[in-house]
């Protein structure tokens, strides 16, 4: 293909090509214009040197985890911990206590102004978040938009967030439990039961438990979620924690706090349950929060939720890394080779 130039000073066009359709502003076509000169001949030679970007097996594993889009299994969390321990936090609470709403609020909160200066930097579970967002948006319509009831699954799986706080990046893995497993152990304290096994696994894997108690007008004597059943829930949970993860940190979350004002009749019951909770878990308690989820108060940055996330992040401080040697020590053996290969990226 020929490239031409125009030597007529009155014309604005400099370069054009010989395909009969010159962008000539003087004449209407190539033939009409006499000021055209050839300047170069476009070569068609392919200068591409065939480089190979082969990915090693280890890479593929690592890659499929880090750039995965779906929920992350517990055994794969180690991939996020190549340099710093990732934070793991798990939402716990009776059915309908607002766990999934809280999880959704956490994600939205990262986009809104917040006191803790948290920002959304990425996620390796984008599809899972996407499902959660669209479920919350469209599931049952009008505000508050209800998430669907969380279904218990045979394996613990986590959502991932890369959070930027004060210009430092943190990995956070979040577990959402199905409330039904807790009602299971309240009704029937059977350590052989599937529910018990499940709770045991969630509790022992995590570093921070976010325990949710509903603040709406619930704790009457006669309905299922009575004061007594809440006490039983707290007792059973305390036993499991003592047996399987006695050092776990606990954040006590009073959810649906917008409902507290309406909650006159049974407020004393709540008070009693809350006091009981605080007494029971005082050893592990690192924070108390009162939350209103984004589904209930759209457009308002959910209060305290940034504080909860901050507690989860800071609860697992960044490891001190002074030298390459230190760094190597910190890296789990099984993933050392991957780390070597991918340290720029991590």
């Amino acid at each position, binding site marked *: *293909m020929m*490239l031409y130039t125009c030597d007529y000073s009155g014309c*604005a*066009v*400099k*370069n*054009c*090509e010989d*395909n009969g*359709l*010159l*962008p000539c*502003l003087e004449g209407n076509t190539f033939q009409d214009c006499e000021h055209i000169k050839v300047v170069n001949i*476009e070569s068609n030679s*392919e200068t*591409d040197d065939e*480089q190979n*970007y082969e990915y090693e097996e280890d890479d593929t594993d690592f*890659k*499929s985890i*880090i*750039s*995965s*889009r779906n929920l992350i299994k517990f055994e794969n969390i180690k991939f996020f911990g190549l340099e710093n321990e990732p934070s793991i936090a798990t939402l716990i609470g009776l059915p309908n206590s607002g766990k999934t709403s809280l999880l959704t609020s956490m994600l*939205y909160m*990262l*986009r809104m102004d917040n006191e803790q200066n948290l*920002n*959304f*930097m*990425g*996620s*390796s579970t*984008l*599809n899972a*978040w*996407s499902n959660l*967002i*669209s*479920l*919350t*948006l*469209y*599931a*049952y*319509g*009008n*505000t508050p*938009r209800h998430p669907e009831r969380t279904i218990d699954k045979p394996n613990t799986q986590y959502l991932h967030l*890369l959070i*930027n706080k004060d*210009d430092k*990046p943190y990995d956070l893995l979040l577990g959402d439990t199905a409330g039904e497993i807790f009602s299971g152990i309240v009704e029937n304290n059977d350590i052989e039961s599937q529910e018990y096994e499940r709770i045991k696994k969630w509790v022992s894997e995590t570093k921070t438990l976010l325990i949710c108690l509903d603040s709406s007008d619930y704790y009457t004597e006669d309905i299922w979620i009575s004061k007594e059943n809440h006490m039983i829930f707290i007792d059973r949970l305390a036993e499991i924690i003592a047996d399987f993860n006695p050092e776990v940190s606990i954040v006590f979350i009073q959810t649906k706090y917008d409902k507290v004002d309406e909650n006159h009749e049974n407020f004393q019951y709540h008070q009693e349950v809350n006091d009981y909770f605080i007494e029971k878990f005082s050893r592990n308690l690192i924070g108390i929060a009162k939350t209103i989820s*984004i589904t209930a108060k*759209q*457009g308002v940055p959910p209060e305290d939720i940034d504080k909860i996330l901050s507690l989860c992040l800071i609860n697992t401080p960044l490891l001190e890394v002074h030298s390459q040697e230190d760094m190597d020590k910190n890296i789990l053996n099984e993933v050392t080779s991957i780390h070597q290969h*991918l340290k*720029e*990226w*991590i």
Partner: protein
Amino acid sequence: MINNLLIIGEPATGKSNFLRMLAYNWSLKSSPVIQTKTPSKLLSQDVLQGYIIDRTQEAYKNVQWRLRYQGKEIEIELPEYNGEEFLELAQTNEWKQEWLERIQECKGIILVISSDKDNVYDLARPAESQVETKNNEKSEDDKSLNHDLDYIAFFQQLFYIKKISRKSKKKLPLVIVMNFWDKILKEKLEISPEQKLKSAMPWFYEFINTNWHKDFLNIYGISPLGDHAEQLFVKSKYPKNPTKKALEAKERFVKDLKSQSWVVTNDKPKEKIENLSLPITWLFEKVGS
């Protein structure tokens, strides 16, 4: 050293027309950008005749566009793949070898996004200030939200391939152009390109802002075809008898190459700057610095 740049964008975001207009502008004698090797595609005359370019059909064919700007050698990889390919990339982790290479080599990115994109319904904003288009029904083909996250997935994958730490502030020059800004001005919308991006793709916007070093990110509104864009036609649809409208469009178009296209910045989103190269020269200056 040659600096490779990549242009990406969804289908029908106006990439081909944008590039064509750039090529014309850079053919002007006064142009600070010099074309040292121009693919023939970019110089055909149809746009200057008052037509627009139709959607790109063929797959990528490795067409390079060599440029020189302030002593820098620059090469733009043409997006002469159709935009669907970008979406495919954004939705899967299995990237073809040629894409891996392209991503590895690129030193800067031009991302073209349509300003026509609907604003998403966003729980982070008060309900009164927005319209709910989907009527609370989640349909299978509702991809608007997913698209937003797909862009994030695309860039995360890109970081991985380029071995850019996902935790660092990115210094890979990125310019986002909100295309068809002529429509925004016509509708008299009081919005900046950055705000438009934020309301159409809130998650992606947050992601970009948190990840990028601010000196290496810029967002513009552009209108390559200019104010008469809406009156232009695809040539193949009028092969023999250009309609009167098309002829009129040509009248307005060809005579005014330099001021045809314009750009707006976030500070003054209504002030047309008659320099389509602005976003690109900004990128040229960042690349390799």
